[in-house]
């Protein structure tokens, strides 16, 4: 496991050399452009909380937040920290961008578009990410697209008949019909339209800052690339979950034809690999994420694992335990949390320990009402009504952790979840599924079991609930582990060092 702090910048220069950029003066506070898609400051969630904590925790820095949003009409749901001085919205949907264009010769779109398509349709073994040369070629194509987007209408060019024709020809030339089916004219139009939306950040004026910090991979990377190409701004990228992995998993639910899915995923994969290659510092939030980044071409010399941190004073060790043996879940009601597995596991626990209770705290997002109803139905079917209970959002999350003997997380996908670290800070032992960076957070402070395995979850709970000594011991380990590895101060200091070192490099 990588030691996340202290961080020293002993890395080779990024592939795209930094051009003379803004040099942070010693007398003024450095400006950081923090970039994220579909999160802060319009929505709640782990990444939003992380962004808010990062900005609030660094009053000695000024922040510009660049939000890749839906249509630009979103409203902020967070209190604005004093040092968050600018909010830049880049809508990916809604009306196409009509921004001010810069002067200069417009590169031939046909040639750059052709290169772009060839990069997406390379044979699997020499795809962007798996081959450094292919990644560099893709990056150079992206830079030309950026130049074009700054001087002409990239959106219109991407969906024009000539471009669609090029896509069809490139597909036929790649000879992938056998594996992915035929790309119809309609498929080509749908794929071009989707890519047009994803590339919209390239048409936006590049952000100006001392450091550009990408809170995730994906299309946020385009904002960073544009800043680096235009102003030589150094880049740091954090990854909570693995954006690319989530794109693959969401494929199944999307109503798109297979060739379109293939083109979009190839685009995301190429973009991710290009971004990994271009950033000056890559900060996975767990070693689990690191594996995906390395596989997609990230340079280990420029990587530092940075675990999320919390303020342990906000989550002090719980002094007491409830009277009845109680299992607690804290998080939003969401299929990714796989609450069906939790409820089925609890049914086994309840059979063994009839006095046991399951208390589930957290909001039900509008989109997940149906899933919530299915959980309530399952509780009724299993005869658990009254003992397995949804309690909604709790004003102080620390109270929810204190309401149980142990905390369970049965997710099928996670990054490095705050709820695990927070509940560990209160001294509660953990029963979690082995997804994302969860096992790195839990360490030996609980049990990590396979996802979707309700019997394993139940077995771990049944081991902990009757054994006071085991719970106390694991709870103490959990608290100690948080204090040693996952505090907010350690985390903000580490990022402060990165910003400082990158500023010096840029200077």
């Amino acid at each position: 496991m990588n030691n996340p702090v202290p961080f020293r910048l002993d890395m080779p220069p990024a592939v795209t050399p930094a051009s003379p950029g803004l040099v942070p003066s010693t007398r003024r506070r450095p400006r950081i452009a923090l970039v994220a898609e579909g999160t802060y400051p319009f929505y709640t969630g782990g990444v939003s909380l992380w962004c808010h904590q990062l900005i609030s925790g660094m009053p000695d820095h000024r922040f510009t937040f660049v939000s890749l949003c839906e249509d630009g009409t979103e409203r902020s749901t967070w209190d604005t920290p004093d040092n968050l001085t600018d909010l830049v919205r880049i809508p990916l949907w809604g009306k196409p961008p009509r921004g001010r264009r810069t002067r200069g010769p417009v590169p031939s779109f046909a040639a750059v578009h052709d290169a772009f398509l060839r990069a997406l349709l390379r044979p699997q073994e020499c795809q962007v990410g798996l081959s450094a040369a292919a990644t560099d070629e893709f990056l150079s194509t992206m830079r030309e697209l950026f130049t074009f987007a700054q001087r002409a209408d990239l959106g219109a060019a991407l969906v024009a008949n000539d471009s669609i024709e090029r896509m069809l020809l490139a597909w036929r030339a790649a000879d992938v019909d056998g594996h992915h089916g035929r790309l119809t004219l309609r498929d080509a139009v749908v794929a071009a339209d989707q890519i047009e939306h994803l590339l919209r950040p390239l048409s936006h004026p590049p952000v100006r800052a001392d450091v550009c910090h990408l809170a995730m991979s994906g299309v946020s990377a385009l904002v960073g690339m544009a800043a680096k190409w235009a102003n030589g701004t150094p880049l740091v990228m954090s990854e909570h979950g693995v954006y690319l992995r989530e794109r693959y998993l969401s494929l199944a639910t999307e109503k798109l034809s297979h060739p379109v899915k293939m083109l979009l995923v190839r685009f995301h994969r190429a973009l991710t690999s290009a971004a990994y290659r271009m950033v000056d510092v890559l900060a996975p939030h767990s070693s689990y994420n690191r594996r995906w980044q390395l596989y997609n071409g990230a340079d280990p010399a420029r990587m530092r694992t940075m675990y999320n941190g919390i303020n342990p004073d906000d989550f002090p060790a719980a002094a007491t335990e409830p009277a009845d043996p109680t299992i607690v879940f804290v998080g939003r009601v969401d299929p990714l949390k796989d609450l069906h597995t939790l409820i089925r596991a609890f049914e086994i626990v309840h059979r063994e320990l009839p006095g046991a209770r399951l208390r589930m705290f957290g909001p039900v997002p509008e989109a997940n009402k149906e899933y919530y109803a299915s959980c309530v139905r399952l509780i009724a079917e299993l005869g658990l009504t009254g003992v397995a209970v949804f309690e909604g959002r709790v004003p102080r999350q620390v109270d929810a952790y204190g309401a149980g003997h142990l905390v369970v997380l049965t997710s099928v996908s996670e990054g490095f979840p705050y709820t695990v670290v927070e509940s560990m800070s209160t001294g509660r032992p953990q029963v979690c599924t082995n997804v994302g960076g969860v096992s790195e957070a839990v360490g030996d402070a609980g049990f990590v079991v396979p996802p979707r395995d309700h019997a394993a979850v139940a077995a771990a709970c049944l081991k902990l609930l009757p054994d006071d000594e085991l719970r106390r011991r694991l709870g103490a380990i959990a608290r100690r582990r948080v204090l040693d590895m996952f505090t907010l101060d350690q985390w903000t200091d580490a990022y402060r060092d990165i910003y400082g070192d990158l500023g010096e490099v840029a200077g």
Partner: protein
Amino acid sequence: MNRDDPVADLIPALAPLVPAAVDELHIAAVLESRGVTDAMARETYGYPDVFALAKSVSPRLAFAAAALDRPERKAPGALRTLAHGPLYALPCAVYPAVFVTLGAPAMLRGLVLATAVGWVAGMGMSVAAFQLLGQGRHRQAGRVLRLLGSAALLAGLGAAWLLAAVGPGGPEMVAFVVAQLGFQLGAAVLVFHGKELRLVALMLPACVAGVVYYAAGLPAELSRPTLLVGAASSVLVMAVAGYATVVRSAKPDPPRPAPLPRTLLATLPSVGYAAISAGFLLYTDARYLTAPFDVSIGVAPLVLGMGVLEWRSHRFAERADALMHTAGSPAAFRRDVWRVVLGELGLCMLVLVGLGTALLLVLAEFGSLSFEGALLIDAHLVLGGAYFIGFLLANHQRFRPLLVVTAAVLAVYVPLTILVAPRLAPYGEIPIFLGSATLLLLLLLTALRRGIGDVHRYR
């Protein structure tokens, strides 16, 4: 566990989850979501990590043909769409009673007012509601339909009072405007919700009363009871339409409603087009409401055929969609889709001409056909063709050419009618109307041709 080939055990569980893998990372992501870790990949399957395991699984996963099925588009039912034209003509059944009660001038003013407001407001309501529906805002769509419908009814009421204050008709004319406008707005809501049959059922009493009144020889003593039945039907349509907007969908709207000004702003092009179209048609037809029967009924084939125009515009979208799957290139698509446009326009004209010819034959049979009457029917048939092309342009959101062309033709037609028609009297407006409708059709066709082959419009 198959000790010789442990990966074989993975395939049956993985196949339904990955019916068509994009690449090895796709399989790796799914493997991990099923709990397979690097440690398991090493210890159970003998590969260094999940990625290597995924790579070895990839060629063994059969490609499920079903995964290549493309999402299908559902078009509205043909019969339902065909009914839309005649549905809006249902209140005609009680017009004789209105005529007897109000007299020609008052009825004419009221009808023009109600039809114009209803046409424009109905278009705005439908466009706003469809827009919100597209965003998954079913409940807000219902609220907006109620809000805009009520606002339009109040506006119609106010305008009718003003009209009654400065001309003939009095309160009866105001009541007629409210009933007619209420029907149009209610019908727009019921059609939006696909409740055409309910609309017919609600209007049945008015139609029966109107037919009985006509069959009885338009007796003065029956005109008010007939109107009362008509008004009752209209009130029922409004009430049922209002109830239909209260959506009890299990699926909630997104958390934040769409801003109303933004929603209304987006309807402006459609509303503008509806206003110009209403102006074009009513400027001609309103003046002939009290003319001899063959002239006053000249608009009938167009009204009856409107459903056909709407239906064929849907069919055009379906046929173009099919071409998007079969055409080998944008150039081939451009060529073929233009042929489809001409074919569909020809079919629309054929149906309209059929309806017009039937009317001409009936009028000729009864000795009521004049040259002017026949010419006016022909002009409406040509206008029907223009409306069909207008549907296609509007469906592609090409409002700029649509608005420019229709407004330009209206700007030529109205002054020309004022200046030239008196010299060609009587009915000097009719040849100018025919010429303008022809010009409108040709210009709209030209505008359509310019962008019909742009494949991005069919996404």
